């Protein structure tokens, strides 16, 4: 962990915090109403707002998690820098790819 990774990790956390509180609200709303796929999609399809909202969370979460995983691996395994870098990028890119695919799936018609 150095200043660059630290700033990215803390910034992504601070950015995500309010968004995640909203997401928690969405979770509560959807689960207590027992929303079906059609109900969810009726709200998200074509919505620039939901698309931007969740795309932002995906990018921030991927950054935050990738750096976090790197730090944990650097302290709890014996992996060297190059392996840690590879791990971080792999996690980050996987989460971004899967996440944006999911956002596209529920937003794009």
């Amino acid at each position: 962990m150095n200043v660059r990774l630290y700033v990215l990790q803390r910034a992504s956390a601070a950015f995500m915090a309010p968004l995640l509180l909203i997401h928690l609200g969405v979770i509560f709303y959807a689960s207590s109403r027992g929303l079906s796929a059609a109900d969810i999609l009726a709200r998200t399809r074509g919505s620039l707002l939901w698309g931007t909202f969740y795309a932002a969370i995906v990018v921030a979460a991927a950054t935050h998690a990738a750096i976090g995983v790197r730090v944990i691996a650097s302290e709890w395994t014996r992996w060297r820098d190059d392996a840690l870098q590879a791990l971080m990028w792999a996690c980050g890119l996987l989460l971004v790819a899967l996440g944006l695919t999911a956002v596209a799936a529920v937003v794009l018609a």
Partner: protein
Amino acid sequence: MNGNRGQPQHAPNTSGHRHNTLWLAALLHRLSGLALAAFLPLHFLVFALVLKSEAALDGLLRWTANPAVKLAETGLVFLLTLHLLGGIRILLLENLPWFAGHKRLVAGALLTASMLALVFLVRAA
């Protein structure tokens, strides 16, 4: 930890410092983060299922009515809330002048996460 109980010890015992609320808080923060990071790809894949068909997503959403799944979701709500609140405490610690009461904040975070998870479980049941 306390004296030689007849079993050979091959390294000095030096873990007493871990009996510390804030150390435990950091451990919970790390483990909850790891669990959430592991869960996220699954979470994304579920919603990407819509690309296949709405029916596929519906099928999966019906599966989530299963009590075991509801329990797992409750766990996730707990982990997310805990990690989020713990993270906010760290952001405050690192960016504001030093303040006391961290143990109380940790207790508050645990309590809030537990209560929120309980409310989720009860409402979703």
